[in-house]
């Protein structure tokens, strides 16, 4: 565990979370949510939780984002907030 690396990823995480919640285009929001998942996967790897990182990479950055994109395609792209 490297403390500086830790801090940088954590700060990026908060930024990614806020952006994905504030973007009005839901497709972008889902993609940024995928980025959020990837960042958090990096964080797990950095903290020594390799199995969790692997799962998060497959699920958080992969499947979750794909499922969300699928729903956005089938519904509406624009959101009011």
């Amino acid at each position: 565990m490297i403390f500086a690396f830790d801090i940088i990823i954590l700060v990026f995480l908060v930024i990614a979370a806020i952006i994905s919640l504030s973007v009005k285009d839901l497709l972008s929001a889902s993609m940024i949510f995928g980025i959020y998942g990837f960042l958090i996967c990096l964080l797990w790897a950095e903290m020594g939780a390799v199995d969790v990182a692997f799962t998060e990479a497959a699920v958080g950055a992969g499947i979750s984002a794909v499922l969300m994109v699928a729903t956005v395609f089938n519904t509406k792209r624009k959101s009011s907030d």
Partner: protein
Amino acid sequence: MAEFFEQTLQPHFNFWIYVILMMIGLWALIAKNNLIKKLIGMSIFQTAIILFYVSLGVKEDATIPILDPYGQAEHAAAEAEGAETEGEKKRDSYIGKKSPDPDTMANPLPHVLMLTAIVVGVATLGVALSIAQMIFKEFGSLEEDEILEIVKGGSVDD
């Protein structure tokens, strides 16, 4: 300022961030109007808890929780130094006899728990997204206030 950083922030930095992320998620869950945004908030909320758990298992200067039962790392190190036989000796003595020092290895238990939690998270997300699709089919909208207006307006006809 520096003192505050040293004493309060640094030892608990991960825990502070987990609280912040969790509050971002909770706020989105309550205040956001769009259902997909609520779901993103819910996922952030869940990952915050995972961050908390994984932070529990971290040890300073510890390695990943996978053993090296055949002493490959030591063997390679010994080989690099040219002492091949010694490396093999080490490997033989290692198998099943020496138990690792617990302080040099991250705690595996929170990782196991969080694998389960991640799976539960994606399962919930899938169910919630399917309900969101059903709502869109029924009401033609994903905005909560518009849906509530349709429900209240009494223009309910199946």
